[in-house]
């Protein structure tokens, strides 16, 4: 396939390599400053963007990066921005042997930088691009391997040979949070309360020893243990003004098993379900978190905040 010639308005099913050419690859860039590099990469995309708005695009990409560093894998960053008036997804790639600092964290220095610019009204485009790169993002050493390539042509061929295809749709697995807090069904209420407090969470998935989803403990359920319906009927709160019903919970939190208060009222999707199923579940069931399963194993969670950020802002 020749570089860039298969790029269609719809990127579904297209290969990732069709989104850029070797002219949009800055190989072995000497730039070490993040903002300067983003500026250079945007300039490399100049013809696709139109010269008039380059400064605006640079500003948007840097602002986005400031909000949330896009280091998605060791040594790899995917800065991006949504651009009004842009007709299609465009990509620029840069490699650096010295490394460019994208975040203050350990591992914040990256060697492979993939700038993804998407149309402003295309919610799934960036996620599709990330999804198509999932194969190389998860392989250790990818950044060093690409950074060692000594020409734009070779870098382009690396992506082309990888068979990286933009998926037809974004899956739940693409937007889920893989690192999440959970509790075991043989934990006690005490453990759940500690986690609620420490992580400022409203829901905690409960898993068994094999990682299979067993239930969900919500902060609401904990409150309900203390304030059941029959107490809430009363208008006069004087009998509970000093949180008397909570005393029982405190007395027994160490011996109340989560299995006793966890709920089976939750929304799950499979990892490969279209991400829109997540939104559907949230809207129809009025929940703020969807649990993602691989078989019966809990592999991720998608909070409503994550969904909105990923689909409407990233």
């Amino acid at each position: 396939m020749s570089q860039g010639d298969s790029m269609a308005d719809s990127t579904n099913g297209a290969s990732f390599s069709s989104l850029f050419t070797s002219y949009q690859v800055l190989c072995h860039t000497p730039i070490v400053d993040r903002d300067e590099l983003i500026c250079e990469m945007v300039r490399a995309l100049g013809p696709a963007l139109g010269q008039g708005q380059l400064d605006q695009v640079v500003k948007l990409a840097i602002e986005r990066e400031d909000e949330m560093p896009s280091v998605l894998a060791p040594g790899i960053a995917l800065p991006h921005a949504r651009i009004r008036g842009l007709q299609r997804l465009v990509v620029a790639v840069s490699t650096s042997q010295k490394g460019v600092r994208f975040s203050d964290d350990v591992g914040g220095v990256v060697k492979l930088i993939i700038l993804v610019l998407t149309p402003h009204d295309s919610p799934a485009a960036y996620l599709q691009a990330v999804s198509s790169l999932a194969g190389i993002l998860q392989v250790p050493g990818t950044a060093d391997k690409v950074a060692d390539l000594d020409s734009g042509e070779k870098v382009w061929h690396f992506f082309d040979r990888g068979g990286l295809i933009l998926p037809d749709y974004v899956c739940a697995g693409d937007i889920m949070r893989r690192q999440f807090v959970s509790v075991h069904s043989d934990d006690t209420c005490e453990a759940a309360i500690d986690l609620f407090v420490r992580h400022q969470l409203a829901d905690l998935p409960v898993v068994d020893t094999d990682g299979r989803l067993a239930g969900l403990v919500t902060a609401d359920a904990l409150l309900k243990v203390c304030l059941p319906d029959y107490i809430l009927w009363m208008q006069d709160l004087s009998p509970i003004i000093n949180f008397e019903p909570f005393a029982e919970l405190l007395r027994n939190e160490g011996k109340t098993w989560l299995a006793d208060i966890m709920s089976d009222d939750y929304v799950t999707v499979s990892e490969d379900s279209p991400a829109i199923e997540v939104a559907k579940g949230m809207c129809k069931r009025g929940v703020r978190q969807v649990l993602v399963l691989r078989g019966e194993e809990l592999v991720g969670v998608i909070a409503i905040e994550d969904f909105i950020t990923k689909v409407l802002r990233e």
Partner: protein
Amino acid sequence: MPSVRHKGLTPKQMFVRGMLVLVLSASTALFVRALDYTGPQVIACTVFAMTVLATLLFWEFRLAVAFLGIAALFSCDVLTLDRFVESCELPVILFLVGMMITVGVLKELGFFSWIIQLIVGMHHMTGTAFAVTVMVLSALLACAVDEVTSIVFVCALVFQVCDTLRVSATPFLIMAVMATNIGSAGTMIGNPVGLLISHRAGFTFEDFLIWAFPVMLACLLTAVGVLLVWFRREIRELSERLEERRQQKQALGPLVRVPYRKGLVIFVVTVAAIAFHHRLEALLDLEQNTLLMTAPLAIAGILMVWRHERAKHYIEVEVDWWELLFFMMLFAKAGALEHTGVASRVARDFGTAFHGSPALLLPVILGISAIGSAFVDNVVFVAAFMPVVRELQATPLWWALLFGACLGGNVTMIGSAANVIAIGVFEKRHRRSLDFWQWLKVGTVVGVVTCVVAWGGLTLMAKHMPVRPLHPHDGWGAWPDSHEAAPAALPDGPEEPR
């Protein structure tokens, strides 16, 4: 009664059901026309049939259909404003308004919280004790307040205990609902049907205590026995969980000091005022049932003065205006059936078919009202059937109608308001529905057994029932072996149609 909820009907389903209502209503019109009914009678029957069908197929639209039906009756000159006011049973409606406000105040005062805490805090509770307690509480609460209030509060108790112990709430919910339906026949305030019958037949609260309450108790005892056996496995499981929890020294729920005394006083005064209305009316030389209907209003008024800052809330939230307006429209339509002469004509046909024998008519009316109430709103059914029973002029038949309507509600999960409310609470909580067939199996057994018990009880008591005017304008309720002469003959013919 109420059909399953119809939210989310597809346009195709709406169309099919709409056509079904139109076709069946038109068939009703043609059928009664073929029987030589007059024009107004045909219209009254058709509008009533349409309301019943709409209740069954378009539960969400039942009030709209009721309004349209009344408008149709007015337009066709089958109903006048005076007739409407006369037939819509305003005293019953006002009684229900007063009771709903009083129940709302009792709830806020913690009266029901106190009752539930008494049970939640019981020591040495076992599965059997819990099941019996739930059923007896459901029945007695239904007697003392009403079936809807009873099931709302008992549901909370069932879910509290079952969810805490992680056992299925379904069996205990079914027990509670069935006991509520049975208990609602025990007093006139247990069910709108009881109120309606008491108002039309002129029964007092004491009449209910003497003639209905014992039969209700017999039915309840039978049902308790049947349900304890039917759900023995689930009850045993609850016992085991209770024992485990007891060993962990954990309660079934938080127990707080509830200031229940004010609520208890209000409850006792309200029940006493209703219970002794007949004696007080006699003492004050008031027309029969005057105090019965005004006592809840007076008590509600006093409560609204006392808690004036919440008065608007009680009126707007605690009173179920939707249901009450539906009842008013329904009663007016039943009134149209009566004054156009449909009721007396059907009564005559009934009397002829069963040789005017109340002993034969008793099981027939009990059975018909039980079957009818299993599938149609029991208030709808009783409203339609009451004028017929009124024309048949035999006291035991009123009780047969009451028990049939209340006990028949147990057969299906849509058989009564209590069932529908309990299912709604269950669905909201567990996001799934109860199994229709599971309910039907146990419901049929309980329904049939309790109807047989009620039949036996009423037959035994029938000869002792007083032969006295059922209503100032009615005839006499006679039973073959009663001590006084039975002047009641079946009516000669329909009232002159308008």
